[in-house]
Structure formats: structure tokens, C-alpha cells
């Protein structure tokens, strides 16, 4: 992984580095009525610190067209210090660690990327994702929980 991964003092979610799971990106773009927090989290990206690791990028590429991906990258590239894109693969040993803990390969890849990037919080709408694994080196929050930490949950539910 990149040696230039940055860390900030984790005071609040606004200052922590996040990884948004693919479901947050996709629901944020699809805008289903029962996932308003995902829309809000994407809108708040310029105020957050987010890494986008390879596994998430590949999944987004499988869901979006080339043109849609280009548009997304143009947006993300406006904030290179706050939104960092990582095409590097992760060490297979780290993947194996999560597989040994019971993760399927894809889930293990996501968890391994998050750990390798030394990210504080994985934001996912999958409540069961990694729920059974003890001692994770990162927290798993829903989009709504992130907004709550940011003090924006009431605002989000109104919109």
C-alpha cells in the first residue's frame, strides 16, 4: 500500500480517516428514500477525510459506466488532500488473516485494505459486515452513525 498514508488526530469523525463501503457510494447515488444518510455523507465528503481503496474502486467500476466513473473521479480529484484514491493491492497475508477469521474473500479484501491504510472507520450499510470479528483495528459505522457523530443527523432526516 502507499507509504504516504496520512493520519490525523482522531478527535471526531470529521477528523478521522474513513473508508466508505461500496453500498454507501451506491445508495448515495441511487438515493433510495430509506437511505438519506448515504446521500448526506457523499455531500459532506469535502469536509471529511476519506480513502478509496482498490477493492471499493473495482466494485464501483463494476457498477458504474466509464462515463459515470470519469465524472466521479473528476469530483473526487477536487479534494486530493481529503479524498485519496488507492489502486494498490493489499498484502495477501492480510487478506488471509481475515479469511481465517471467517470472512469471504471479497469482505476480507475490504477489511484488509481498511487495516492496511490504517483507517479509523469503515462506513457501511451492511450491519452484519464484520460484526462477528473481535478486535478489529477499525470501527464500523453506518452512514447515519457518521452523521450523528458530525451532529448532522437531525438535519439529514429533514432533507
Amino acid at each position, binding site marked *: 500500500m502507499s507509504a504516504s498514508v496520512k493520519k490525523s488526530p482522531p478527535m471526531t469523525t470529521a477528523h478521522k480517516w474513513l473508508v466508505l463501503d461500496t453500498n454507501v457510494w451506491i445508495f448515495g447515488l441511487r438515493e*433510495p428514500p430509506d437511505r438519506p444518510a448515504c446521500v448526506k455523507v457523499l455531500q459532506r465528503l469535502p469536509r471529511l477525510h476519506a480513502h478509496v481503496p482498490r477493492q471499493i474502486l473495482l466494485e464501483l467500476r463494476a457498477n458504474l459506466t466509464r462515463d*459515470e466513473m470519469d465524472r466521479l473521479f473528476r469530483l473526487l480529484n477536487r479534494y486530493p488532500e481529503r479524498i485519496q484514491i488507492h489502486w494498490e493491492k493489499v498484502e495477501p497475508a492480510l487478506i488471509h488473516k481475515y479469511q481465517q477469521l471467517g470472512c469471504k474473500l471479497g469482505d476480507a479484501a475490504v477489511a484488509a485494505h481498511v487495516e492496511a491504510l490504517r483507517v479509523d472507520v469503515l462506513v457501511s450499510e451492511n450491519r452484519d459486515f464484520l460484526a462477528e470479528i473481535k478486535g478489529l483495528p477499525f470501527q464500523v459505522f453506518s452512514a447515519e452513525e457518521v452523521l450523528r457523530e458530525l451532529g448532522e443527523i437531525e438535519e439529514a432526516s429533514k432533507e
Partner: protein
Amino acid sequence: MMSLSIDKLAEQIATLDRTEQEALFERVAELTFQRGLETLARQYRERLAQEGKLDQKVEEVMAELERVREEVAPHDYRA
């Protein structure tokens, strides 16, 4: 576009102190980002509607994303 011309707007902004100008430019950049995101989301939803996928339930979308995840990963890492 707006009642103020660009020149008049620039004159007004130039009267702000540096901190206010920075906050203003940051807010403009954020709004531009959000507009771009809204445009992308609209384009994406239009495509999904054409493909008959826009009304998929959240659970169906989650299942599809999980399937894609497990299809993508073996390209990088052997199972």
C-alpha cells in the same frame, strides 16, 4: 445567472477580509462539488431507470453488491 454582474460580485468579495474570502471560496467549492454529485446521481438513476433497476429494493441492491464483491476479489487475490 444572477442580479449582480461578475465584476460587481468580485468587488464585493474583495471587500471581505482574508478569512471571510477563504470561507466563501471553500463554500463555493463545496456547493460546486455537491452540484456535480447531484448531476452524476441523476445520470446514474436515469440509466438504472432505463435498465428497469431503479425500483430495486435495498435488500436486492445489497445482494447484488455482495455478488459483485465476490466476483471482483478473485481477480486480485486467489480464493
